């Protein structure tokens, strides 16, 4: 079955990537260090590359890799123990587990992955560091791939990852699932990090301009995979399901979202391009969340997206329902951005003038002066209200601020269509 052909190697690559988080998480608990665990895991992959093509892929590749990596780590500690202070470490490991300890059972491996999620997303780490480490350790991305996601040199990213792992080790960030008291806040931090990865993939801005990508499906896919992992590991947390639903329903619209390098707004999207399977899964998750009746910001945003994806045509959208959901969202998360989005929904129900008034009435709206969606939204409502000059100024301000190429193309087109009036 193996001829060393390209697709065989791709297949091994995919297995390594899928199993990476599992293997490193189990080894980290065993070896007490993410660094040592990663080294051991890559050694095991080298062994696998030698033996799997000859002997076939073992029935439980993750378990095989973990066991092999553990043996390699023990061998190495034993070798080094003759000349360094690692002697104690090696002895301890050997006494605790022996060379041929049983493969840890599935449930303890799952616990390790959950520990790893919470360690990588610990609030004592900078948000960008959390994202990078999560992609590397749990996503199984190589340092070069993480560097590409951040658009920095591989050496720079390697240094950053080392510093982050150094802080985890030296400051003793614990390798455990937080206790009940701290869990809600810590889980929010985990979900926020995953959503950050998704958004960077969905609407890359800033320096991404040079690569010209409007959407980066690699990152959105990775974020969804991580959210699936958290939902699988913590099935009783409705906000985790809410985040997964939110991302699925957003991802479902990806194919319709950009046309000829230009962003297409929700109202103008070709809904036949939407991914029905993702929508069905997202709707199912939203329904399950509703039954639980413990709403949180991610679940409410998912519900809003469910209303949108429920409408066969834009004009059939149940905007009153969306306004009601935004009211609910604003109650739990009273930020100016939520206020702005609620005003957009209000404009659909009560007309552009009411929408503009609602925007002006948003508490703290002045803090969004450098947020281009504010100006793009105002421009659209001013246009609908017949104020071409006001709309022009607002589109220009939005264009000054927007960095995503597809978004800029969309805004330019709106602006020039205005000038034809």
């Amino acid at each position, binding site marked *: 079955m193996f001829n060393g052909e390209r697709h065989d190697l791709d297949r091994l690559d995919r297995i390594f990537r899928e199993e990476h988080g599992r293997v490193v998480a189990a080894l980290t608990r065993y070896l007490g260090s993410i660094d040592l665990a990663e080294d051991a895991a890559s050694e095991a992959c080298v062994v696998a590359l030698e033996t799997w093509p000859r002997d076939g892929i073992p029935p439980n590749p993750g378990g095989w890799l973990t066991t092999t990596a553990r043996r390699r780590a023990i061998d190495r500690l034993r070798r080094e123990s003759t000349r360094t202070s690692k002697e104690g470490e090696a002895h301890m490991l050997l006494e605790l587990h022996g060379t041929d300890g049983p493969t840890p059972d599935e449930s303890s491996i799952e616990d390790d992955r959950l520990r790893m999620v919470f360690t990588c997303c*610990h609030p*004592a780490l900078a948000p960008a560091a959390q994202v990078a480490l999560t992609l590397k350790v749990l996503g199984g991305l190589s340092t070069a791939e993480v560097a590409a996601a951040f658009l920095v040199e591989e050496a720079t990213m390697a240094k950053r990852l080392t510093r982050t792992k150094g802080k985890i080790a*030296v*400051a*003793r*960030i*614990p390798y455990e699932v*937080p206790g009940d008291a*701290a869990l809600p806040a810590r889980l929010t931090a985990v979900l926020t990090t995953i959503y950050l990865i998704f958004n960077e993939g969905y609407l890359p801005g800033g320096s991404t301009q040079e690569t010209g990508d409007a959407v980066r499906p690699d990152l959105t896919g990775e974020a969804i995979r991580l959210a699936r992992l958290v939902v699988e590991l913590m099935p009783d947390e409705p906000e985790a399901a809410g985040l997964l639903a939110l991302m699925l329903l957003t991802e479902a619209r990806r194919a319709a979202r950009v046309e000829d390098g230009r962003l297409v707004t929700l109202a103008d999207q070709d809904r036949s391009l939407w991914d029905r399977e993702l929508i069905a899964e997202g709707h199912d998750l939203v329904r399950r969340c509703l039954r639980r009746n413990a709403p949180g910001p991610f679940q409410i945003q998912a519900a809003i997206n469910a209303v949108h994806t429920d409408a066969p045509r834009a004009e059939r959208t149940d905007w009153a329902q969306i306004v009601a959901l935004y009211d609910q969202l604003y109650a739990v998360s009273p930020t100016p951005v939520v206020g702005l989005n609620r005003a957009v929904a209000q404009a659909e129900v009560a007309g552009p003038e009411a929408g503009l008034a609602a925007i002006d009435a948003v508490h703290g709206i002045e803090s969004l002066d450098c947020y281009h969606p504010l100006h793009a939204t105002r421009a659209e409502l001013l246009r609908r209200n017949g104020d071409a000059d006001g709309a022009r100024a607002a589109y220009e301000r939005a264009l000054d601020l927007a960095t995503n190429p597809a978004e800029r193309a969309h805004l330019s087109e709106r602006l020039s269509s205005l000038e034809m009036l």
Partner: protein
Amino acid sequence: MAQYLLSVWHDDQNFPQTTPEDMERMFVQVGAFNEEVQAAGKWVFAGGLHPITTATVVDASKGDPVITDGPYAESKEQMGGFWVIESEDLDEALEWARKGSAACEGPVEVRPFQGE
């Protein structure tokens, strides 16, 4: 068990504007916090510092010592005091820092000490 430095940071310029009532309240709060740390067996050492107007810098790194008046870092925020505590891990140290910050009504920086 590891040791952590919990340092308290104040806006040194505005600190003198604190009223005697504020000082009294913080004094009582910090006293209670100190007792809690001691009762938990996590206490190593702690102290409050005089304002930066009393600070002096000595630099003998290039041979002859150079002595200058004032704090080393010309920053608005200065360390006003600190605790050295024992903790199992960072989460425990952060929990002590949360209580310490509330007691002294200022942000607290947490840094691990190097091991032996």
